[in-house]
């Protein structure tokens, strides 16, 4: 299970040192601007922008491709029907089926948007440590209970998945194959056991937290997050540039229509 989305967060590029709050706002706006695009003519620009940003981030291409593989596969599975069912202008025939132009173009549009947005997401979360991004979200208004939940889930995800692997190995060593109804019951017991163990651990964790004062310092909390980040004018300029690019896409889309 490769959870190392911030494996390259230690690099030093303008994107890495950009104030994460501004980066989050800028990137998410641009991502939504991409999703607004409905016209093929804007696609090359989309590819160009995401390509340039990826180049600046100095994240290795292999990183992007590895993360693209599985979701790309699923998208294709979903979208492969489109050329066959959508539209009326027939390009050519494949046996009894006809491949239609509009469907192909629809698929192209979806595919390019998908890849561009994915790339942006990978850059956003790949150029800062995960923890920093969560703190940035808090600074932008994420409720603290959700932030706490995110951090906890992140912390214990590894441990619990290790638990699962250990239990699955133990099951296999005792001959479990899982190909029948009984297998389903066993897997349900496995899932249930993971839930029970996590629940019991959460109880101990809660005790450990209260013993170190969890809940005492709510007053101080807001203040401490603000101290985490210090923005310079170049951070603001970066944001303005991205917002302008996003606006360009939106305006371009509206005008072309």
């Amino acid at each position: 299970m490769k959870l190392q989305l911030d494996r390259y967060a230690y690099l030093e590029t303008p994107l890495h040192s950009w104030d994460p709050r501004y980066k989050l706002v800028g990137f998410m706006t641009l991502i939504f601007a991409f999703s607004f695009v409905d016209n093929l003519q804007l696609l090359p620009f989309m590819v160009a922008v995401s390509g340039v940003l990826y180049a600046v981030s100095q994240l290795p291409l292999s990183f992007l491709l590895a993360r693209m593989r599985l979701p790309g596969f699923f998208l294709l599975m979903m979208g492969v029907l489109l050329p066959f069912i959508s539209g009326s202008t027939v390009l050519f025939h494949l046996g009894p089926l006809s491949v239609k132009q509009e469907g192909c173009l629809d698929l192209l549009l979806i595919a390019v948007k998908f890849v561009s947005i994915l790339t942006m997401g990978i850059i956003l979360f790949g150029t800062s440590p995960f923890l920093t991004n969560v703190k940035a979200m808090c600074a932008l208004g994420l409720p603290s209970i959700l932030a706490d939940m995110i951090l906890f889930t992140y912390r214990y995800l590894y441990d619990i998945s290790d638990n699962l692997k250990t239990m699955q190995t133990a099951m296999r060593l005792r001959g479990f194959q899982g190909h029948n109804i009984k297998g389903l019951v066993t897997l349900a017991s496995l899932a249930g056991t993971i839930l029970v163990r996590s629940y019991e651990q959460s109880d101990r964790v809660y005790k450990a937290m209260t013993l170190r004062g969890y809940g005492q310092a709510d007053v101080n909390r807001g203040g401490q997050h603000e101290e985490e980040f210090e923005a310079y004018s170049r951070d603001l300029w970066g944001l303005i540039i991205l917002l302008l690019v996003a606006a360009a896409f939106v305006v371009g889309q509206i005008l072309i229509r």
Partner: protein
Amino acid sequence: MKQNTQNEPALDIYNLSFSYPQRSSVIKNMNLKVWPGERVGIIGPNGAGKTTVFMLICGVLKTVSGSISLFGQEVVPGKFCPEVGLVFQNPDDQLFCPCVEDDVAFGPKNLGLSAKDVESRVKESLALTGIQEFAAYPPHHLSGGQKRMVAIAGVLAMHPELVIYDEPTSNLDSSYRRRLINFLQQSQETMLVASHDLEFILEVCDRVILLDEGCIVSDGQPAEIMGNVALMQAHGLEKPHSLVPHTEPHHSVG
């Protein structure tokens, strides 16, 4: 080994009794006084009630009858009491922040200290436990021994006066175990240490309490209590090897 120079016990348990909803009489009329600076080892078979007593001392559980006082103040269940620190048996239960630094800072932050004070406490605790290099690591990248030291750092960062260690040597390799022994021998705080590792107790503690079925069976010098074979065996324990008189050379040499 500090001598008792103060009038007030660090820990004063008086006629303590406790039951769980599913199990009655887990602790029966326990009386115990621990003085400042003492290092008390708590030994006993599994299920004797050690962890329960710790939870009662920390105010996580509420007593059924009797009272517990820490440094003269009665323990209020549910109240945050940084004077006592508990190092849990399983460090994974205690290391709940995504990185070591944040975890050690957790206690001081909740004490309401300024950001600068929090930072200095974190630095101090990491230095004390010798784990500065792991400050930015996530807990799951650490070994059992390293996690244990982080857990201890997190507790010490609150500057407790009484520290309770629940099975601190479980899952430690010999080098970390030795490191822990050295660390505890240097510590100034009053401590309670529960452990199945009897040799460890011999090296670290200056007083031992044998707990079984919720009662204190014996209380005194470590070598005396643990050297008493009949007593140890009656409570499911073995006499530590180092206390066996080595009059006959039974270790094969050469």
